[in-house]
Structure formats: structure tokens, C-alpha cells
């Protein structure tokens, strides 16, 4: 640092400038992150009226206990975890498969790469609207191919709704997964693979023992970030099932949304939101922890 050559006045000016530069962000964080975050805790302790302006009643931890022990919340949690389990590993494996296939420099590979990454150009809403229509029980093409035309719709059937939502999600995020995995593969030095090849290791063995460990930071990152994203899923639920049938797709964020926007119950919503916060927090901490240890040995 060169501050020792600077005049004290200059240092004060620097400091002022420093505050000025972070101030806009800080104000926005205060209003849109820390205030609502703190308010969640306040709301969680209060029974809130269905309309603003009516009195809120302090109920201590009663509401927290009621919500956490309610079958609805537990079902919602279960559904969310299932959704994460359905979408994240499948998405990673498929992305990795595509990335491995497209990794070798062969003729026409640019075309394949473009196709494999094409779904990043869609959005959750676009993908959901596409699948919603293709899965329509009366006129949907997929329903027709599944031989279910004119029967109970896939999205209305409690046994298949979450799977259909998951498939939509996997498809929509496949492009992203592919790009991530490709970038990871590019980070694996070719000479390592070649050395293993010289040692006479077969291709599957090479992949399992050389490539995969080298990829572990990418895989880990994809798993954690993917899970965090999946825990926050909302759009596909709203567009495909609205949480139904019989709450089989009522993931956490959707249930928070319903509490606030359909039932005007911010107190209950706050409890669920805090639960979501802690889940994501744990995932983040796990990521930071592991990022240090297990994964760094590959470096």
C-alpha cells in the first residue's frame, strides 16, 4: 500500500469516497435484504391479520410450532426435497454425459454443442408453458405418445405430477448443466488422461479414476448450487400444477406464495421462509466447508 506517502487529508477523502461508493448498495441491501429478513423473524412471532391495517397479535413461538408440526408444512418439505432429489442428480448426470460426448474434437461438434446448450435460451416460464401444453390430457402430444389421451392428465395425477414437473425442470436446466460440465472437463489436463492411457487404463477406468476426481469441484459446485436453486423453485409449479393435485407439488416457495397472496397470512409464510433460509444456509456452509477440504486435493 502506498498510503504512507499520502497526506492525511487525502486519506480522509479516500475514506469518504469509500463510504460513498458502497452507500448505494448498502441502502438497497438494508431495504430489500436485511429489513425483510429481520421482519420475517418478527412476523414469525405474530399472528397476522388477513388485511394490513388490522392489529397483529404477539403469539411467541406458538405459530412457529404450529407451522413446523403441521402436516401441510411437512408434506411441503417432503415434496421439496423429493423435487431436489429428482432434478439435481439427474440433471448433473445428463449434463455430464452430454459434455463427455461432446468433449472430443470431432467433425460437427459445434453443432452438437450448440444444441446441447440450447435450453439456456429458454426460461422457466417458457419451458413450463411448452410442457404444460404438450402434457395436456386432451390435446397434448406427449400425452398422446404416452397413450394417456383423454384419461386423467399427467399433471392432475398425484403419482406423476411431481415427476412431470421435474422432467420439465431437468430439460430447462440441461443446457446450463452441459455448459458447466463442459467447462469443468476443459479444466482436466489432457496429459493426465494420456498418461493414464499409456498405462493401459481402459476408457471407462480412465474416466472413473482420473477424469471424475478431477471434475469433483465442478460436480460439487453443480450439486450445491443446483440444490439451492431447486429449493427455490416456483415458476414451474405455478405454471404447471399450482401446487396440486392434493398438494403433491406444493413446494416450499409455492406454499409461502399461497400463504401470502391467496390467504393473506404473512405470519405463517414467514415461518416457512425462515425454514427455507436455514436449509439454504446449511447447503451454503456445507459447500464452503467441502470446497476447502475434499475438493481441493484435486488441485
Amino acid at each position, binding site marked *: 500500500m502506498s498510503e504512507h506517502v499520502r497526506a492525511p487529508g487525502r486519506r480522509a477523502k479516500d475514506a469518504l469516497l469509500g463510504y460513498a461508493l458502497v452507500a*448505494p*448498495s448498502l441502502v438497497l441491501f438494508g431495504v430489500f435484504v436485511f*429489513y425483510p429478513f429481520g421482519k420475517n423473524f418478527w412476523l414469525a412471532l405474530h399472528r397476522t391479520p388477513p388485511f394490513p391495517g388490522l392489529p397483529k397479535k404477539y403469539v411467541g413461538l406458538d405459530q412457529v410450532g404450529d407451522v413446523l408440526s403441521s402436516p401441510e408444512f411437512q408434506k411441503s418439505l417432503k415434496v421439496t426435497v423429493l423435487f431436489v432429489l429428482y432434478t439435481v442428480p439427474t440433471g448433473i448426470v445428463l449434463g455430464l454425459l452430454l459434455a463427455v460426448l461432446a468433449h472430443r474434437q470431432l467433425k460437427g461438434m459445434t453443432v452438437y454443442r450448440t444444441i446441447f446448450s*440450447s435450453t439456456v435460451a*429458454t426460461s422457466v416460464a417458457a419451458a413450463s408453458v411448452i410442457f404444460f401444453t404438450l402434457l395436456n390430457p386432451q390435446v397434448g402430444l406427449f400425452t398422446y405418445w404416452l397413450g394417456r389421451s383423454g384419461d386423467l392428465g399427467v399433471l392432475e395425477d398425484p403419482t406423476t405430477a411431481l415427476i412431470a414437473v421435474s422432467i420439465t425442470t431437468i430439460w430447462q436446466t440441461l443446457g446450463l448443466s452441459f455448459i458447466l460440465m463442459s*467447462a*469443468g472437463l476443459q479444466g482436466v489436463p489432457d496429459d493426465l488422461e494420456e498418461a493414464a492411457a499409456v498405462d493401459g487404463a481402459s476408457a471407462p477406468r480412465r474416466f472413473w479414476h482420473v477424469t471424475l476426481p478431477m471434475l469433483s469441484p465442478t460436480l460439487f*459446485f453443480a450439486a450445491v448450487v443446483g440444490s439451492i436453486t431447486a429449493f427455490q423453485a416456483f415458476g414451474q409449479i*405455478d405454471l404447471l400444477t399450482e401446487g396440486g393435485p392434493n398438494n403433491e407439488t406444493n413446494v416450499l*416457495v409455492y406454499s409461502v406464495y399461497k400463504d401470502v397472496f391467496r390467504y393473506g397470512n404473512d405470519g405463517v409464510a414467514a415461518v416457512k421462509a425462515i425454514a427455507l433460509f436455514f436449509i439454504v444456509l446449511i447447503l451454503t456452509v456445507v459447500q464452503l466447508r467441502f470446497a476447502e477440504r475434499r475438493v481441493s486435493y484435486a488441485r
Partner: protein
Amino acid sequence: MRAERPAGVAERRRRRLRLAGRYLLMTGLALVVLFPIYITVVNSLLRPDQIAARPPSLFPTDPQWSSYRIAWTDGHMGRYLLNSAIVTTAIMVGQVVLAILAAYAFAFLEFPGRGVLFVVFLATMMVPFEVVFFTNYHTIADLGLLDTYGGLILPFLATGFGAFLLRQAFLTVPRDLRDAAALDGYGHFRFLWHVAVPLARPTVAALGVFAFLSAWGQYLWPLVATNDEHARTVQVGLRQLRDTSLDNINVTFAGVVLASIPLVLLLLVFQRQLVRGLTAGAVKG
């Protein structure tokens, strides 16, 4: 390379067969990945009764472009796309500018509490938007900003992630460059604009593309923060379109295509920056 190369027709044929198998597999997968997109385009050009016909038509022999006109005018897609473009651009520019400013302060300026403030910035990354959106909804409503661009933009202007990313990039600016600039009498803003930002350009671009991409795809916030078409974005417009054109789904499909075109164009131009932006987190490990 192996020392002895096992020549022979059998080996070469096996290799060629394996290669063919690889292409076959990739082509199959490519078709699966592409199919929903393909059928969306096709269905947008069919008449509703053709879409419902069985066996299905998989090729538009008699393309009907009117669906696009209906989606654009009656479905308000033109308006929604404009709204999305305004909101997304504002969020992107805002995030990049605010992140540059904050990152500069954290990387180059000394001030009491800098460490704590940086931690505060990082802490914002721990609070997902989905955890706080409904209180933000009330805040925006109380400010009278529902159904305005301001209401859609404000909550997303500041970014802890962006500030963190750019600070890392700024820290790699060699110290002697800074000293040299100081000796040349560069003020902070000149240094920022002429030295620091150009050097961190790949990161800035990555952040910009990333910000654009996430803002463009937003659904939850525009859904709750808009109730009429004045500021409603294209993603929520799709929902609107789906609900109002149940009787002619070709219009819905046309809407999906229209909503995706800007992103396709963007990605074609900024492919590299996108990959950087998306993998930024992975690289930081």
C-alpha cells in the same frame, strides 16, 4: 501414444464403428433435447385443429403466421417484450455500475469498517430472494411502486455477488500499476475508468451477461409486483397468454417463441461471456 500400433483392418473397423455409435448416440440425444423447441416452433405455425389432430403433424405444411400477429397485438407480447427489455437492461446496468463502485472501494480504498462492510455484502448472498419476497412486496406496495418499472428494478439493483466477483478481479491489478497511476496524478475515477475496469473487462462482461440472463428469466417477482400490462414482463405475459388463449394454443406457442428470441440472439453474440459468467462461481471453488 502407444509404442506399437496394432494395425489391421479389424481394429480400424472397430474404431469406425465406435465412432458411428458415438455420433448415433449424440444425434439421438440432440433430437431429444431439441424436440420441445422444435415442436414449439411447429405448433406456433399450425392451426389449433391441426395441433389437436391425431396422428400429429410434425411439420407445418401450410404455415399460419397469424398466430404471431395475434400474440403480438391481442396477447400484448410487444408490450411485454418492451417491458422486459427495459427492466432487464436497467437491472443489468445498475448491478454492473453499483458492483464496480463497491468493488473499487473494497479493493483500492482504505476506510474504517471496510472489512465488516465487505462481510455485510457477502452476507446478502446468504439470503435468497425467495425468503424475503413477500415483505419486499409490501414495501414496494407501500411505496406505490406496484405495476411500475421502479418496483420491478429496485430490489435487484444491488448485488453482493457482483461486488465480490469484481473485487477479486480488481485485486489482481498489479500494485505498481496503481502506484504508477497515482504518480501520474490519476484521480480515483480516472484510474477506475481507464485502468481497473478495462483490466477487469472479462469479469464485468460475465457479470453483465449473468445479470441479464437472470433478470430476463425472472418470474416470481414480476408475477407478484405487477397486476396489469403496463409494466408486466414477458415471462408473466406467457402465463397470461396461456390462460387467455386456451382455445387457440398456436398463439401460446407463438408467444413462447417471441419470448425466447431476444435470449437466443443475446447468447449467439455473447456465448463466451455467458460461459464465463455461469462458471464464475465454479472457478472460484
